[in-house]
């Protein structure tokens, strides 16, 4: 029952407006992947709805015509969550960017799903509040994308992941019905469907609006950059800090590969012999004087642990400007690697924190074995590692080596008691690796949950769960393959 491109454009144009339906080779190329670039698939049309009702109308059209559809925010996802189905419709939230209501007294805010994460905090910073989840992509990644992937970030160690900050949602289900779940007051009786939707990677419907929790900005913050002569000293320090019961606001680890890139890109210099850097942040939102004492006390405990683990240098930021500079280095670390090689793949895995030293040793072994270079960035407090392989993707052998190395690392994560993904999601990237963690009965449990919302095969099809019926056929018809 194939719909022609002309018919699709005409009919979707009549539901929205002609200028908000894109098609043709240039547009299809622009939307053929997200930040997971090793897999590409051309949609037939891209729509830019301006309201929940328009999203619902498009979904209903897709259901009637049995055309697959995929939601897309900023397209910064790293696991292929926004990879279109071949010949399907991409529903972009780029025009759903409004903040609809700010309720300061009740510390919540209602926004449309296409708004960039950072803009939520921008709207309430002057009132001493912020939206706590801070993925590195936050200046562009959208609320809807953050919800789909249950985004993390450096401050989730203390403040929690996105799921803990979503109070209620408006979504369009795979049938095109508009649903309201949860609300300003969280935690009520009944089944918690919001907790199924957050992290469901756009496979249970499209979130168009959400009530988010606002968190008080800290009244006191201290950050320090600690240099270690060996990676093991740094990873042991992280394990010791957590074991001591300290919960820093952030605990980020960078190894030599990142330092070299930062020096090349920004001229940042580190003490001689540094093999690993640990960025630690402590904060408190108590009254300023109490808060200052609390953060100082925490930072003091952290310093002692660092010294016990042979830190070669501890620099504490003396003011806000210096603190921002420390973070700038961390947040731009991955991009800075562009100085070292044309391409980079940032892998994502999780292990129990106590296994960090062992895991990092393994990452270096794997990189050497496959003849690829690696730099490591970690949300070390959560055991969430991001080995960044840098290479030249014009050489297919290097691409293959990088993908294989990634798979070995993920297998090791599961072997050590962790997970195949800490924050990037399963998407298409890790779909076939889920059986490492889950038995057929475990996967059937998840399929049953999916069925509550999505009993068909056109809402962001063939993602997350492996071996879905008809996916083999769909993969031939609907997915592109990188090589």
């Amino acid at each position: 029952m194939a719909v022609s491109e002309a018919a699709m454009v005409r009919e979707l144009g009549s539901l929205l407006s002609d200028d908000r339906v894109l098609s043709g080779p240039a547009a299809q190329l622009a939307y053929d992947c997200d930040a997971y670039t090793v897999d590409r698939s051309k949609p037939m049309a891209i729509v830019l709805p301006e309201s929940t009702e328009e999203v619902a109308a498009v979904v209903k059209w897709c259901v009637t015509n049995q055309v697959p559809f995929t939601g897309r925010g900023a397209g910064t996802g790293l696991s292929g969550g926004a990879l279109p189905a071949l010949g399907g419709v991409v529903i972009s939230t780029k025009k759903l960017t409004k903040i609809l209501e700010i309720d300061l007294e009740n510390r919540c805010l209602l926004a449309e799903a296409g708004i960039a994460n950072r803009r939520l905090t921008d709207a309430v910073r002057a009132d001493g509040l912020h939206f706590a989840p801070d993925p590195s992509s936050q200046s562009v990644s959208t609320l809807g994308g953050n919800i789909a992937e249950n985004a993390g970030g450096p401050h989730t160690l203390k403040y929690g992941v996105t799921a803990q900050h979503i109070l209620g949602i408006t979504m369009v289900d795979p049938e095109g019905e508009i649903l309201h779940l949860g609300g300003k007051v969280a935690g009520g009786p009944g089944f918690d469907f919001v907790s199924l939707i957050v992290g469901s990677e756009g496979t249970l419907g499209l979130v168009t609006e959400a009530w988010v929790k606002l968190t008080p900005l800290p009244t006191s913050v201290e950050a320090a950059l600690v240099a270690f002569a060996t990676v093991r000293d740094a990873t042991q320090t992280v394990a010791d800090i957590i074991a001591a019961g300290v919960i820093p606001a952030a605990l980020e680890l960078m190894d030599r590969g990142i330092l070299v890139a930062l020096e090349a890109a920004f001229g940042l210099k580190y003490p001689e012999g540094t093999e690993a850097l640990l960025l630690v942040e402590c904060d408190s939102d108590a009254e300023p004087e109490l808060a200052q004492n609390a953060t100082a006390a925490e930072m003091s405990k952290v310093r002692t642990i660092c010294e016990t683990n042979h830190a070669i240098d501890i620099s504490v930021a003396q003011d806000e400007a210096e603190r921002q500079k420390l973070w700038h280095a961390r947040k731009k670390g991955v991009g800075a690697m562009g100085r070292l090689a044309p391409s980079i793949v940032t892998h994502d895995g999780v292990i129990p924190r106590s296994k960090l030293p062992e895991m990092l040793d393994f990452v270096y072994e794997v990189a050497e074995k496959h003849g690829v270079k690696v730099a490591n960035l970690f949300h070390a407090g959560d055991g969430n590692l991001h080995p960044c392989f840098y290479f030249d993707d014009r050489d297919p052998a290097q691409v293959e080596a990088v993908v294989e190395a990634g798979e070995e690392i993920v297998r090791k994560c599961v072997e050590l008691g962790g997970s195949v993904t800490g924050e990037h999601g399963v998407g298409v990237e890790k779909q076939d690796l889920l059986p490492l963690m889950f038995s057929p009965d475990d996967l059937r449990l998840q399929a049953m949950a999916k069925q509550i919302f999505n009993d068909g095969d056109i809402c962001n099809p063939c993602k997350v769960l492996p071996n879905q019926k008809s996916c083999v056929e769909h993969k031939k018809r609907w997915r592109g393959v990188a090589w």
Partner: protein
Amino acid sequence: MVTRVEPRSVDEVAEAVAAAKEIVCFGVGTGLAGPQTAFRSWKCDYAIRSLRNAVPLEPETDIEAVELDLGLFDQVLYYSPSDQVVQIGVGAELGSINDSVSACDAPMLQNILAEQNQCIPMGGLCVGSVGELIARNLPHALQAQCGSWRDWILGATMVLADGSIAKAGSKAVKNVAGYDLHKFVVGTRDAIAVLVDVTLRTFPLDALPAPKTETGPNWTDKNQSAAVFEWIQRTLPSDFNSAKAGVGSKLLMADEHSSTLWCALDEPSEQLPRYPGDWVVTNGCGNRDCGDLSPTQIRLMKRAKAIFDPTNKLNPGEWGFM
């Protein structure tokens, strides 16, 4: 008739669930009528009381049920203090932090964790097994500061209505692999699947904040261990003070941080003042407890139930309309 089964292994749970026509779950044999157990449905309650008191069932209330006592599932299956992760059977009694009084022989989870300077950061009112507390997911006194079960649960093993055994989540404190079934089952009162063990994130005792609750005029120390909270209400912060004033002497406890009130009622069907956006849980579940559910929620809950438990075997009547 109601028969009682005390399985010793997950396979025995699976067998019992697969074979039964109706399952009524009961977590810990402490015998305390704490606030959690007070919120069981009339049907479950009746079944259990009839079993305990050997009272014969009236013909019109005859149910053929299996009472699944998971009290034997109280072992620590895995505990890594340095990773702050513990996996425990649902029958384990939680206990209150810093309270060494236990009504049963097995050590309470809080005591086991306290030896490593850790805890589950639940404020007061911790009567019941881990399984019961998770099944009902009622508010507690440290909720605003430390979150609650959906924030602490990292994984779970459960038995489905057809007797199959499945697990969700992992032992990692951060994990986005697949759908979060372990979070979804929290608060479902064993009506979707029977939980047998859970993996939880622990909290450092040193960092534990003090609860900032106030108690009402009729609060007694007896309330702490054997209270019957008949009405639990959460409002928007902006309505909290009015709500608190509005319940007057019926107030047993209030937590400003989470805008929650715990109250006693003069009689079961009494209604206290309501506020926009608020929610209420009352004693006796079943139909009376479901007034706050939206039509969307009810529709989705029925759909979930039809998928997971098509013959309505698990805790029937627990949710009234299902």
